[in-house]
């Protein structure tokens, strides 16, 4: 917070962007706590990685552009990185969770259409069934 010459419109813009972004991130994390199954839960934090990140980084761009008196766009680097990597990690995580649920023959998960997968699941039939997880 350097100097008293920070203009009011920029302060209001930065405030609105920061609070909106953090509220969206909080909404995503609350959704991750409250949803019932893992496949619902995996959708929730992505609101923080998409629009929460966009709003907070936009507030940072506005703040540093006004204080440094030149365009500050280095936050775009974080945005590009997060928006590229989040789908990769979450799709891999969802595939891993699906694989684990099929191995354990969870009745809520539909069987695979790939015969190779089904052969692997048949081979795992000897494995003991996992006890039911009671937490919702």
């Amino acid at each position, binding site marked *: 917070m350097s100097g008293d010459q920070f203009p009011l419109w920029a302060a209001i813009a930065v405030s609105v962007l920061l609070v909106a972004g953090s509220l969206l991130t909080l909404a995503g994390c609350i959704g*991750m706590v409250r949803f019932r199954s*893992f496949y619902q839960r995996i959708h929730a934090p992505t609101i923080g990685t998409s629009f929460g990140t966009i709003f907070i980084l936009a507030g940072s761009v506005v703040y540093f552009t006004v204080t440094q008196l030149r365009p500050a766009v280095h936050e775009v680097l974080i945005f590009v990185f997060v928006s590229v990597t989040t789908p990769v*990690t979450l799709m891999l995580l969802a595939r891993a969770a699906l694989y684990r649920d099929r191995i354990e023959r969870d009745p809520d998960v539909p069987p695979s259409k790939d015969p190779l997968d089904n052969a692997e699941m048949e081979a795992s039939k000897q494995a003991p069934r996992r006890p039911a997880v009671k937490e919702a």
Partner: protein
Amino acid sequence: MSQIILFWSVLACEAILALAMACAAYRLARGPRAQDRVLSLDAFYVSGMLLLVTFGIRTGTTLYFEAALIIGTLGFVSTLALAKFLMRGEVIE
């Protein structure tokens, strides 16, 4: 006037992000399964990265930006490695 607005909004933003990290930590501790913990660790990393960006706005230096970039990179790599581990039982085959 604008300093007061900025101070309180950055403080509110940090408090809300800390609450989001607390929600992620609750899910991290509660589970119930390993994939839930990995997912909440990813959300925890993203919230911490955004918290560092707001620290950068509070202090007015771009030093925290680099820390946020490193946190984002480490979060990506760790989540990827943990998802690979859940799938196959080992990270590098």
